């Protein structure tokens, strides 16, 4: 009996020849990512609770200040300071203001075949490069930081077979929201969502990251895609080589197989207050918006900015709407400057922010007020996530968000 891609990566990390869904394995973690959302607490535990504080391999640690930057309060600044000082003392790779952690990880660190822990739930994005990324809390993180190892319950896999091609005006974001709507917010809990099929060939790296990134919203432990030619080209362009290029065996056992024709996918939105509360975009036409957000680890990449800029060029953001455009990393920002995209956004009346998590995280810049409505390419639309507890978030693709910013109400790109 063959193994799934997830089983293969975990077996490699556990240094065992075979492992099966349901097994518990002790694994050596290839990389440990953490950000300012929780690292201050990890550091406190490191200092106050460990009998023998030490770090197994500081070179495996990568830390980011990306959630609340620039700092919005003395308390935030104090937590950042704690991180900065610890990173300096222990020579931990430290990025402050370089962009959203997952994007920078994809640009600089993630390699196919690796097993990566991130103290952030969207770590599953690394599956786009064929790596097993999963989100952990700071206690798990600390354990791995100290020992270099952790335990994993080997997950079963839902294989999603993609055929065909997305239609014009439809984004990878629409695809993954459709899938989450289908299987539900808990539909993949403890499982891996694996994407395969000839449809993959038409998906760019940006599309793939966007898809994998959002799988945690169906409860998934991780998301995986085979590192094919597109992924390996990306890797090479960024100066790295794979740890191992793996894929599921033909005779591997899957929990479930879902087949999707990409050509059938339509623009979709997730309505308040849950990611699986999806509806065709047209059902929400006319909903007035106060703010629109293009950015995040999900849709702040160059490809997203390109399609959005193309749509908004020569047009204006609707009066009274705050349109936040936040590139996902410094290199995205730089490329976007070179291509003239940033200028297009500013000219249209958008506010271009420094690369960071911004309003997707809802505690720093662009928070929305009581009764306000946001349309966002962020990852979540939980009640109150973007600000006031009585506010509304719709999630949609870069195209739909930009179209809505122009119209001042929810609409799709073909209508502006």
């Amino acid at each position, binding site marked *: 009996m063959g193994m799934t891609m997830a089983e293969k990566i975990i077996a490699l990390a556990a240094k065992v020849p075979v492992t099966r869904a349901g097994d518990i394995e002790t694994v050596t973690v290839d990389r440990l990512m953490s950000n300012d959302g929780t690292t*201050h607490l990890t550091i406190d535990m490191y200092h106050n609770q460990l009998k023998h504080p030490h770090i197994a391999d500081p070179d495996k640690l990568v830390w980011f200040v990306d959630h609340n930057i620039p700092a919005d309060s003395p308390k935030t600044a104090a937590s950042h300071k704690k991180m900065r000082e610890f990173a300096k003392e222990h020579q931990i790779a430290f990025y402050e203001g370089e962009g959203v952690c997952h994007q920078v990880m994809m640009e600089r660190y993630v390699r196919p075949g690796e097993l990566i822990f991130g103290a*952030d*739930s969207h770590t599953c994005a690394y599956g786009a490069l064929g790596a097993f990324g999963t989100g952990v809390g700071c206690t798990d993180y600390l354990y791995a930081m100290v020992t270099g190892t952790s335990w994993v319950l080997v997950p079963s896999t839902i294989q999603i077979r993609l055929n065909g091609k997305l239609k014009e005006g439809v984004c990878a974001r629409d695809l993954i929201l459709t899938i989450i709507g289908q299987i539900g917010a808990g539909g993949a809990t403890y499982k891996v969502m694996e994407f395969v099929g000839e449809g993959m060939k038409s998906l760019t790296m940006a599309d793939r990251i966007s898809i994998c990134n959002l799988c945690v919203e169906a409860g998934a432990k991780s998301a995986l895609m085979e590192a094919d030619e597109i992924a390996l080209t990306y890797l090479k362009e960024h100066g790295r080589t794979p740890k191992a290029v793996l894929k599921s065996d033909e005779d591997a056992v899957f929990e479930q197989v879902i087949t999707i024709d990409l050509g059938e996918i339509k623009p979709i939105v997730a309505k308040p207050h849950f990611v699986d509360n999806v509806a065709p975009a047209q059902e929400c036409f006319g909903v007035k918006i106060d703010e629109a957000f293009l950015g995040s680890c999900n849709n702040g990449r160059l490809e997203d900015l390109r399609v959005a800029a193309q749509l908004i060029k020569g047009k204006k953001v609707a009066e009274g709407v705050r349109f936040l455009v936040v590139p996902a990393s410094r290199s995205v920002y730089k490329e976007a400057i070179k291509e003239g995209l940033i200028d297009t956004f500013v000219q249209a009346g958008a506010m271009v922010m420094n690369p960071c998590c911004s309003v997707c995280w809802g505690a720093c810049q662009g928070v929305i007020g009581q009764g306000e409505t946001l349309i966002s390419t962020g990852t979540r639309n939980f009640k109150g996530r973007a600000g006031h507890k009585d506010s509304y978030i719709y999630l949609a693709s870069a195209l739909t968000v930009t179209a809505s910013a122009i119209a001042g109400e929810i609409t799709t790109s073909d209508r502006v």
Partner: protein
Amino acid sequence: MGKVFRFHKDVDTDQIIASQYLLYPTVEEMKEHTFESLDSEFAKKVQKGDVVVAHENFGCGSSREQAPAVLKALGVKAVIAGSFARIFYRNAINIGLLVIINKELYYEVQSGDTVDVDLEKGLIITEKGSYPLAKLPKKMQEIMDMGGLIAALNKEA
């Protein structure tokens, strides 16, 4: 014995503790904002030994360990839900917050009811009856038995 605080389906980590409080220096400073958007009085009302009961998929969303940590800091004895999101579940066990999967209790109790979780007898006891405690996976039970992952780590070292 503790009081029940009952919540709905898909209680996400932003409801348990919102983003704007996560960078506060300590859990102690965060805990008064627990469940703020759902019940702004929760942190004031909850007492040591009380129990949170919820429907399916409790703790979905982010990996923020602050979510189980504030519940523990407020003295919540256990969270009993139909199912849990993966990361929350693991985080809770790691810090020694009791998380119990039970599909019936949500339908049987209301907020304000009294309930007892008797670990020795392995029972959840309500005014109406009792429910057996589901067993934790072995690995997790070991961590709980040692008093959480850090305690386990300190024992290994």
